[in-house]
């Protein structure tokens, strides 16, 4: 009798229907045709860095609180987000979390500061709201001024979105307005449903995994 072991499949907290497997993750197989979309980006590697907000680590990472940057820290293209004072969230391609964590640890090793680098990939939910209706939909569930003058492309902030503490990252793709929304895994499905509910009048459609779509440029 032969023994076979199926490859482990990671699952997002957001139910995918119909589902397919991509890079070891169960993702939605849908492909939206509308302009405004919501996609589950939970498979992206998510690594959190904590360090003093105003010291050598901030200089080594090159991103201040409230801003983002598409860069390469040695593990491929990543989105480095200054998510809070002394807190950085790094997003990378699916499956790159161990390499990303190592690369960040090496970069911070010479700072002489107390830092911590933690892989949160399976503990958080991440989604992308994109398209011309993205601002209207998001404005319906959070109290932040989303005008270009206040929150331009490359802005990162944390606030209450549909009563869930959420990192909101404006990460436009090819000039199309786009927001990454990052929250605790246990709130992922609720936040997803709340956004779909808020977007029902704006014809927001569910689409499959997109990944980091922007071309690398510092902002």
């Amino acid at each position, binding site marked *: 009798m032969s023994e076979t072991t199926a490859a482990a499949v990671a699952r997002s907290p957001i139910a995918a229907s119909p589902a397919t497997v991509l890079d070891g993750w169960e993702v939605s197989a849908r492909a939206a045709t509308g302009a405004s979309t919501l996609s589950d980006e939970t498979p992206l590697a998510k690594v959190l860095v904590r360090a003093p907000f105003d010291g050598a680590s901030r200089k080594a990472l090159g991103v201040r*609180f409230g801003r983002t940057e598409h860069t390469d820290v040695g593990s491929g293209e990543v989105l480095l987000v200054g998510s*809070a*004072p002394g*807190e950085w969230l790094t997003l990378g391609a699916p499956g790159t979390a161990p390499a990303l964590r190592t690369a960040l640890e090496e970069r911070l090793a010479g700072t002489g500061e107390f830092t911590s680098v933690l892989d949160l990939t399976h503990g958080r939910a991440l989604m992308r709201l994109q398209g011309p209706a993205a601002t209207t939909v998001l404005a319906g569930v959070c*109290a932040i001024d989303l005008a270009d003058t206040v929150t331009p492309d490359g802005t990162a*902030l*944390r*606030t*209450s979105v549909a009563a869930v*503490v959420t990192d909101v990252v404006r990460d436009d793709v090819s000039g199309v307005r786009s927001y990454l929304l990052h929250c605790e895994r246990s709130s992922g499905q609720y936040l997803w449903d709340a956004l779909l509910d808020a977007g029902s009048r704006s014809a927001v459609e569910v689409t499959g995994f997109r990944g980091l779509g922007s071309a690398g440029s510092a902002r």
Partner: protein
Amino acid sequence: MMLLPCPWCGPRNAGEFKYAGEGGARPDPATTTPEEWRRYLYFHANTRGWVTESWYHGAGCRRWLVVERHTLTHEVRGVRDAVQVAREGTR
């Protein structure tokens, strides 16, 4: 709606914050009597006017803040990071 001007995040809805009571110097555990601890923990001046308070921005920067607020009008005239205040010893 009450807005609190967070020094890190800008003006935010007070619902994003957790009110942690009137500020004040923490008693020395080595010399404080149980009665003094009880007064420190549970008794408040409840002033009608300007009060220095502690707030926690749980849905934002996750920093403790020292807020000067008028309890009658809810006017806020100063918000500072508690770490900075502690370093300067200016609370």
